[in-house]
């Protein structure tokens, strides 16, 4: 692996709004070139984290850096290399899509005015908005607005894209297009940091994930590694529950719990073959034995606690 600095790093990052600790002790590590899915239920602090990374909100504690430079002190030199979509699109309603993008481009002191029009045109084309380029923003549909927000992030070639729920409000076709677009950018070497509360989306798109729960990062790493969290479980169908439990604990499988028609629990590293043989040899009447792997969705719900309930 290269020793390139991580695209995003943070250490002990925290933010409190009033009495609520919204983000606590966050240690993000997004490797350069990664496509990082930042998932967590509503209100878990994803947007607040993104705001801190981009210098919109001042952390109470800790530090963070983008592309190896400290934020927010290096904002002027780093942010031109970062495209961002933060908590949905926001534009002037009475300006056209083109005029809005030109304004965003004018705000960046490093952008080249000579190429502004052509860059705006190709950004609009990339998100499929060319036909509506001259329309006033207030006449845009929800999905068109979202696309314009993504176009604003693509006005320049970027080293890092920070996209907060980029497919929010898009139709299935639009979702696919955006996913395709992001995958293409990631393939070109752009580091992508995408937040979502939809695990399925992140699973398809990303190679790294970080899971937020109540302002804390409860898991982070390459997707393949986190798949390991999906410990294998068994389901045993039997009438002799007490006897079966005795055999299982003899094998070191401790946490078996009563299921509707038998027992269920984690394999705890014991091979299923051994369990079945031991059960049969002990004379337990086995009606059925199955090894199940929880879906990533189930693992995610486990990690984030009470599932998708809003906390705070």
């Amino acid at each position, binding site marked *: 692996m290269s020793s390139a600095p991580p695209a995003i790093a943070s250490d002990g990052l925290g933010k409190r709004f009033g009495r609520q600790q919204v983000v606590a002790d966050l240690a993000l590590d997004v490797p350069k070139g990664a496509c990082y899915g930042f998932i967590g239920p509503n209100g878990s602090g994803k947007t607040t984290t993104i705001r801190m990374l981009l210098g919109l909100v001042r952390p109470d504690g800790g530090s963070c850096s983008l592309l190896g430079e400290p934020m927010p002190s290096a904002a002027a030199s780093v*942010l031109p290399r970062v495209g961002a979509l933060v908590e949905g699109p*926001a534009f002037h309603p009475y300006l056209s899509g083109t005029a809005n993008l030109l304004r*965003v481009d*004018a*705000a960046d002191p*490093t952008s080249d*005015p000579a190429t502004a029009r052509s860059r705006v045109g190709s950004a609009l084309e990339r998100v499929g908005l060319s036909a509506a380029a001259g329309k006033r923003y207030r006449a845009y549909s929800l999905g068109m607005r979202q696309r314009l927000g993504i176009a604003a992030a693509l006005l320049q*070639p970027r080293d890092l894209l920070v996209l907060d729920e980029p497919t929010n409000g898009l139709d299935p076709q639009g979702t696919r297009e955006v996913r395709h677009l992001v995958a293409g950018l990631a393939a070109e070497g*752009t580091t992508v940091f995408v937040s979502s509360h939809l695990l399925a989306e992140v699973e398809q798109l990303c190679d790294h994930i970080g899971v937020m729960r109540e302002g804390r990062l409860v898991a982070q790493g390459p997707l393949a590694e986190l798949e390991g969290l999906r410990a294998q479980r068994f389901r045993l169908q039997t009438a002799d529950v007490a006897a079966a439990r005795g055999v299982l604990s003899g094998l070191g499988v401790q946490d078996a719990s009563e299921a509707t028609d038998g027992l269920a629990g984690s394999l705890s590293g014991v091979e299923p073959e051994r369990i079945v043989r031991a059960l049969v040899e002990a004379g337990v009447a086995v009606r059925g034995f199955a090894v199940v792997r929880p879906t990533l969705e189930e693992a995610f719900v486990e990690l984030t606690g009470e599932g998708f309930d809003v906390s705070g």
Partner: protein
Amino acid sequence: MSAAEVSVRRRRGSFGRLFASEVHLVFGRRRNQVGLLVLFGLVTMLGVALKVSAMRHPGDRGGDLFSLVAGNGVFLGFAGLTIEIALFLPLAVSVLAGDAVAGEANLGTLRYLLVAPVGRGRLLVVKACALGVGALTGAVLVALAGVLVGVLLFGAGPLITLSGSQIGLGDGLLRLLLAALYVAVGLAALGMIGLFISTLTEQPIAATVATAMVSTLLWILDAVPQLDWLHPWLLVDRWSAFIDLLRDPVFTDRMVTGLWVDIAYGAVFLFAAWLRFRVKDITS
């Protein structure tokens, strides 16, 4: 092409480009265009009212500014500034100031400007300059409306000053322009108060109302004789001093002091806006 290969140096002229975008935004907005029309319309109404009264009472002339209009249309420019300086022009500036930061925060566009990254100080300076342009446009438009409507209704010619002497038309127009500039500086100072208020809220209407209230309160305080010790310190106290341009020779003492007061107010509140905006959490 990766972004690292693209220059992230600041380009020359980038401030001008952002400033042009800001001016375009302010003047392109329908509501602001209507506001300018209203400022123009008020002067027109004043002109028509003076014309009607001049026709009903011909030859009945006092020595005040409004009576002078009947003799020379150019005076309508000064009269227009006089009637709009207390409420309508400050209101117009308050509307622009409310939009400046709170309006962008309300729309959410503020966060995209900041991640562009516009730079907080740079954005504030651009907003302040645009408010200055807005103030200047309002004051000059009122003066210009006065000349157009006045000359149409009453004709032009040499002007009789408040001191009774006569000055040429060109001299009169020049003095009117100076009066408009003087008024614009005062309005721009009010704009800085509004800009500061605008950094405190995400509601543009709240910022507009608060700024208009500040201006109105200052006028009220300035009108209470018991508070005459306070008057020299009030922003609006010398705003009407542009009328000294109609004396012969021009009396500049009050206007010079007035300009200093405007500049002091403007600087203090622009600085306050910077202190606030520099560290503000943008959660909109």
